[in-house]
């Protein structure tokens, strides 16, 4: 899994007997390029590199203090690589002991995010996941704007055998409140709210999300993000988080070759956990987040 960036970093340290300021600087330059190519945000990269440098140089000082000639067991290249992986895994956070917070009598999951990231598809996948956990989910078609959005969710619901709540003429906040009443009548124990894609800078639509949240009190407010998102995603995630206080985020389209650096950036900047990973268009393609796989993909 060691990509070119990492190979170059290790090469900068081959044949060295210990980590020094100069050869660390070269290795760090390679890692910086690799992380930026992976779409990790500029500020996040800078802070990451500073921490890695500090640890790597700190360990040079440590080993040189050993007067009995005992050196570090691993080669400097391997040692540096291990520092990078550890710092990255710390940044990613632990696996979520959830990933869904359940509540009686009904659990509410609210899905938000920019346009086209995969919210509607992921709603279907979550319903599938919940069915396998022996729950009775209901899908709620609260995107009343996008052409055929309601139909899209209805088709997914039909394929899964899950009921879909849809109603013309209601605002999304009212529709969602009514859906929960309906879900209780049908003895559903989880409600999944699909909302329309929107820009973080669209005040009216962000207010609509705040109204949906206020009326449904979701236990799980998930920001859905596209794995191929670039530098700006950190800014939009920060706004979604500050206005809605998200519980976590879901990364979609990881079945391609997008490195997914946005995941790292969003995690660092919001402090919120990654809950699920989307790995394809079919309903089974959803996995609860585990840090190891994503770390090596981002570092390359």
């Amino acid at each position, binding site marked *: 899994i060691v990509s070119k960036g990492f190979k170059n970093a290790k090469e900068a340290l081959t044949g060295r007997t210990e980590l020094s300021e100069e050869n660390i600087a070269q290795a760090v330059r390679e890692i910086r390029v690799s992380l930026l190519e992976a779409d990790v945000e*500029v500020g996040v990269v800078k802070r990451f590199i500073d921490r890695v440098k500090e640890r790597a140089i700190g360990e040079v000082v440590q080993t040189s203090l050993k007067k009995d000639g005992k050196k570090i067991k691993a080669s400097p290249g391997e040692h540096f690589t291990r520092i990078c992986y550890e710092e990255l895994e710390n940044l990613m956070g632990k696996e979520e002991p959830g990933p869904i917070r359940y509540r009686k009598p009904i659990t509410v999951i609210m899905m938000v995010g920019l346009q086209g990231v995969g919210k509607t598809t992921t709603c279907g996948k979550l319903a599938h996941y919940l069915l396998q956990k022996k729950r009775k989910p209901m899908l709620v078609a609260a995107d009343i704007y996008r052409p055929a959005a309601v139909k899209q969710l209805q088709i997914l619901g039909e394929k899964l055998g899950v009921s879909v709540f849809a109603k013309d003429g209601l605002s999304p906040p009212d529709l969602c409140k009514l859906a929960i009443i309906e879900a209780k009548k049908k003895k559903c124990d989880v409600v999944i709210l699909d909302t329309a894609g929107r820009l973080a800078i669209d005040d009216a639509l962000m207010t609509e999300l705040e109204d949906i949240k206020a009326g449904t009190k979701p236990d799980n407010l998930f920001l859905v993000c596209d794995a191929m998102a670039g530098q700006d995603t950190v800014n939009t995630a920060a706004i979604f988080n500050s206005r809605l206080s998200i519980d976590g985020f879901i990364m979609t389209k990881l079945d391609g070759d997008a490195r997914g650096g946005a995941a790292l950036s969003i995690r660092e900047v919001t402090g919120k956990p990654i809950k699920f990973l989307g790995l394809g268009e079919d309903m089974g393609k959803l996995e609860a987040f585990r840090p190891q796989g994503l770390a090596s993909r981002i570092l390359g």
Partner: protein
Amino acid sequence: FSRATEIDAGVLDALEEILLTADVGVRLSMRWMDDLRGRLSRGELKNAEDVRAALRALVLATLEAPQSQAMDVEHLIKSTFTKPYVIMFVGVNGVGKTTTIGKMASKLTKAGLQVVVGAGDTFRAAAAEQLAIWAERSGSVMIRGEEGTDPASVIFNAISHARTIGADVVLADTAGRLHTKTELMDEIRKVKKAAGKARDNAPDEVWLVVDGTTGQNALLQAKEFHDVLALSGIVLTKLDGTAKGGVVIAIADALNIPVRYVGVGETVDDLKPFVPKAFVAALFE
């Protein structure tokens, strides 16, 4: 004298940050910074203003180079001898292909042209229903197939129908697909071939739709789709958000493919021709 070099470093760092945060990409940014650094040290650039102007010129030249091949699509359609003019829309999932076709259909209908849209996404839930709403909004004819039909035959039928009724343009929608999926790239190659069977030398254009919020993966998307289909243009969507869409600069530099249109919203009029000067101004503001 060392004070001047201190100022230079600060200016260059700030400019590099603008490029990086705009998704221009680290390799191209570093190449340009090296170029500017060299010109500064040789005295060809004297101060911060010179450096800024030089970078803007580099970016503008990169974006304008492929533009000379591109012409106004309305003009191309109206002056073509081989009707209908066929434009195929491709790209990864969720970038805005279907919505862009809706906007384009409306623009061309308002310009007095007869438009047929082909519902080439036979896979995703409610894809045809979504396009049907846009066809209705734009006053264009939609040709679709049954769900799960082979998309190549839908596009073949759309072009054949357009020939029969003497329509001016066919806008072919296709399903979103990740460029890493071999069987899906084989499928899109077949769709292009089918267009050529329906009318000699169709399609006239293949446009890659790129989401303005995408990072470096867009360059990989462009390379792969270009290899398989020979792209004639890019549509950059969602520029009404805060992302700068700088990855199209890297695409222009690496592949010489021009951006034709920019999507700036979700309603029918939110499609504008790409203007390099305006794009560069927005990048540096």
